[in-house]
């Protein structure tokens, strides 16, 4: 078990700054998810931790030991690849024992370890098969077994569920979660799927364009996004963001009668952040809005989608902005009718359009 520490770690490829200097401290036994759209630098970060990619600058500490320039084989970490990377020419058993053989373990010890780990992952009956004969889920189980068998200091997983079918993905996700609770091993997990990130991560590192946007728990990145990118990226659909005009504690949505007074605790930080500028972005999650005939805000129904347990209403608040509102699934709202709604004041967030950063409310408000 181990802690992992990144200090000003960065990576430049010839033209491209793939990862701008980032700091990250991962506690022993923590499950950290690197989340971001493709090309944001999350996989490069993971590969730098593993040693498969060299760093351009900064330091990587594993258990306080500087491993920045160590060969991957000397770092005592295991890596799980998106496409499993099982050696196709040897059986599942030999795949799993492969890392143990590198350490020169005795035959009996290897057999014992393989047995243990394959029981844990319920793949004992597959040990004599070649990887090519296994289903995607089973291949990933074998790959996990290969990673687990050595009891490494840390696990690095690069989109391990990305190549699986949707139905498998959810059950494997639960398996990985159970495995983590069981083993309590430090894990860094890369994904572009925010649902996966929220389901698995003790903490989530949201990245975009080579920069860390926010580090926090699932609840933090969901409810208190640090900036517009995180607000849009997390959640499905993402946070509703409406540009408004701010005067004296009231946000007016241009071209409409929609006015929204700042909840308690916001007035001072908003005034300080915006200064002369009068533009503000109002953000709220679909579930923060409640339809209410006496609601202060209104808009026209643009579309309505039944999503099973609930419905999502697309409401046009002015010509530019459509917001999503989560509603009861049983009531039908015809298109182009006007609906009124209120916002839960505790779930409203404000952003500065200039810096795109979230405005923080007064503490204790």
């Amino acid at each position, binding site marked *: 078990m181990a802690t992992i520490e990144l200090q000003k770690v960065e990576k430049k490829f010839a033209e491209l700054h793939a990862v701008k200097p980032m700091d990250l401290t991962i506690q022993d036994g923590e499950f950290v998810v690197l989340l971001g759209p493709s090309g944001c630098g999350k996989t490069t970060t993971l590969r730098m931790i*593993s040693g498969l990619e060299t760093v351009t600058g900064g330091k990587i500490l594993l258990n306080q030991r500087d491993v920045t320039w160590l060969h991957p084989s000397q770092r005592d970490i295991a*890596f799980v*690849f998106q496409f499993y990377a099982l050696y196709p020419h040897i059986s599942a058993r030999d795949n799993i024992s492969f890392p143990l053989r590198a350490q020169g373990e005795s035959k009996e010890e290897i057999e014992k370890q393989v047995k243990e780990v394959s029981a844990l992952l319920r793949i004992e009956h597959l040990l004599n098969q070649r990887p090519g004969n296994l289903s995607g889920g089973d291949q990933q189980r074998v790959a996990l077994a290969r990673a687990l068998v050595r009891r490494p200091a840390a696990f*690095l997983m690069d989109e391990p569920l990305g190549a699986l079918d949707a139905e498998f993905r959810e059950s494997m996700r639960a398996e990985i979660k159970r495995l983590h609770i069981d083993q309590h091993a430090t894990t860094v997990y890369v994904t572009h799927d925010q649902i996966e990130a929220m389901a698995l991560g003790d903490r989530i590192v949201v990245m975009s364009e080579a920069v860390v946007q926010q580090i926090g728990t699932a609840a933090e990145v969901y409810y208190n996004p640090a900036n517009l990118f995180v607000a849009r990226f997390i959640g499905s659909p993402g946070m509703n963001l409406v540009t408004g005009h701010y005067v004296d504690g009231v946000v007016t949505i241009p071209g409409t009668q929609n006015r929204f007074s700042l909840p308690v605790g916001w007035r001072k930080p908003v005034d300080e952040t915006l200064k002369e500028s009068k533009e503000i972005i109002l953000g709220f999650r679909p579930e923060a809005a409640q339809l209410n005939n006496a609601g202060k805000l209104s808009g026209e129904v643009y579309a309505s989608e039944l999503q099973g347990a609930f419905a999502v209403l697309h409401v046009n608040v002015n010509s530019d902005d459509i917001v999503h509102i989560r509603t009861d699934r049983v009531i039908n709202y015809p298109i182009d009718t006007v609906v009124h709604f209120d916002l839960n004041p505790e779930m409203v967030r404000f952003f500065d359009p200039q810096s795109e950063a979230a405005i923080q409310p007064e503490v204790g408000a």
Partner: protein
Amino acid sequence: MANFEQTGPGKPVLEATRVDKVTPGYRLGHNLRALFVVILAIVGLIPVFVMIITAFKTRPDAIHVPPKLIFTPSLEGLVFLFTERASASPSRLEELKKAAEGVQLSLVDRIALNAGQEITGPSDYVFRLRNSLIIAGISTLLSVVLAIFSAYAFSRYGVKGKGDLLFFILSTRMLPAVVVTVPLFLMYTQLKLHDTHIGMILLYTVFNLSLAVWLMKGFFDEIPREYEEAALVDGYTRMQAFFKIVLPQAVTGIAATTVFCLIFAWNEYAFALMLTSEKARTAPPSIATMLGIGGIEWTAIAAGSLGFLIPVVIVTFALRNYLLRGVTFGAVRK
């Protein structure tokens, strides 16, 4: 159940969903394609067939017009292939015939006698074939081994000037052999490499290397890097990962490359003709110039070509499983 058609041991299959339905049009097309392949095979195999039957004909049968398809098989070709002979004078012929009536004359001598000739010693065919085996074998081994390492480097590392280097390697293949033999001849005479095994091995290795590097690079490119990376994090060095993981997966590629190199080195004619004379002369130029008494010994040439074919056939046959996968590499989704 009217819609179901019971076929084979399996469950009834709905006629509409069966995928093995064969329409008359498809069947006709299929047969036409098969016919085409058969014709192609026949056209391709005729020379081989003619070679094989010629090897077992007597000389009059071999040069008979129209060609004889039915003939009495004879070992004349083989005997002529392995021996040097002289035409016997009439008096000597009488002597030999007398000896033949007794039991003092061996079968080989009798066959020569039938053609009016006397055996004077063994031919150099076996010696030439051995030269071919040594030169083709070692040069193939060298070019494949060298190609494996350089192609791996080209495939995996950011080699400086990679594109230029690869082009340079390929460019050694661009001039036809005939064009470079004269300068090579001059260089080889200066370097005392003319008519030596080492000289020919070097030449064929260099010549094959371009093809081998390009082929092997393609095969290595097809092997995902993740396999090596997995081995690296599993605690192996780059070298160990290469030998334990990459090489076993490149086996098909190596087999295909080996066969290509071997066939080139084995069949090469122009360089061998110019750059060897006695000690290192390989089979191709010597078979083609196999002249007997009173003209070209077609039966011996056919027998010699037949023997010459055998090693390549054996190697190709031994590697056939790898080859088939090798040549379709990349076309198959992994």
